[in-house]
């Protein structure tokens, strides 16, 4: 079947602003949007730029706006989105070229969450693992699934309006450590998130939850963090 794909193109050398270009390629209904992009790049226009790596929804490289919503191109089938596609880069991050956005501001916000394990206690007597019960593990299971694709943060109107806002992805990653029974820096992270650019900028819009390719309950995680800030209990 023929798939018509309209792509927002931008090249810093040639364009003042972006422009749309339309291509038609032959594809199968079980192909993914990423396959269609590869066909365009391979057969129609080699200058098309987009990120991809694993092609299996694991690395988080190819989040983009597909027919107006943030999706991973490698997890979106043609039969689910139709044969007329509009592909645009993520919103709220500077565009470097075509579908490639500058992820640096996104990672900067992530780093502010101290996204690493903090526990200064000496190791347990056997020198091996710090144990936790299945229930303690389940507490933050959902937020361990994040692949840092930025689909949630760049779907958030609060982030579009203000990139000082840490954004859903950063909060999800903070949640992963705040609710981990082995970690000892929950207070520190909650303090950071209680600042003006923290959870207070979340207006429970749910664009993030809808955009997450991993099905993480993003708004719920943010809600739990908000509650922890309010009550001081994790």
């Amino acid at each position, binding site marked *: 079947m023929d798939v018509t794909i309209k792509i927002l193109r*931008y090249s*810093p050398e040639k*364009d003042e*602003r*972006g422009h749309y270009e339309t291509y038609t390629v032959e594809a199968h209904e079980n192909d993914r949007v990423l396959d269609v992009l590869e066909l365009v790049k391979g057969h129609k226009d080699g200058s098309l730029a987009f990120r991809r790596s694993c092609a299996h929804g694991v690395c988080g490289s190819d989040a983009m*706006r597909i*027919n*107006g*919503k943030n999706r991973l191109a490698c997890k979106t089938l043609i039969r689910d989105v139709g044969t007329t596609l509009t592909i645009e880069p993520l*919103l*709220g*991050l*500077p*565009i*470097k*070229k075509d579908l490639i*956005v*500058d992820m640096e*501001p996104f990672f900067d916000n992530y780093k502010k969450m101290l996204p690493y394990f903090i526990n200064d206690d000496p190791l347990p007597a056997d020198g091996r693992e710090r144990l936790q019960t299945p229930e303690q593990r389940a507490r933050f299971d959902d937020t361990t699934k994040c692949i840092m694709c930025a689909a949630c943060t760049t*779907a958030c*109107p609060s982030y*579009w*309006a203000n*990139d000082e806002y840490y954004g859903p992805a950063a909060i999800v990653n903070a949640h992963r450590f705040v609710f981990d029974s082995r970690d000892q820096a929950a207070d520190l992270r909650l303090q950071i998130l209680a600042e003006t650019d923290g959870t207070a900028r979340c*207006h*429970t*819009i*749910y*664009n993030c*939850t*809808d955009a997450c390719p991993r099905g993480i*309950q993003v*708004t*719920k995680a943010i*809600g*739990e963090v*908000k*509650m922890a800030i309010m009550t001081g209990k994790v």
Partner: protein
Amino acid sequence: MGLSRNVSLPTALRYRGPAGYLTFILHRIGGLGMALFISMHILASFVGGGLGEFLNAVYESWIFQIFIFFCVFFHAINGLRIVILDLFPKLLEHQTQAIWIEWAVFIPLYGFAVFTILKTAFGG
């Protein structure tokens, strides 16, 4: 170099968000609508005279009443939903259902208000 990150209002409105995105937009319109109504009200009593009467006539007209009732009811009910969900984050898993319930409460309530306004305006 790169293209700026700015997201214009039309681009933002074109984002195909879930049900919660629509309620978010309507919530903002509701808030702005109420601010408009209150400013008109204050201005009308402040300046008085011809302009005051004109403003009075505008916000007392049935069309404006239909608009302002939408703003107040929607803003209140949607706000209530968000407060409840914020207090019980576990419920956030059922956000879509919560929005359906919200519409189920809003539509009859607002429908009744519109019906009453129209009846008063045209039926006496």
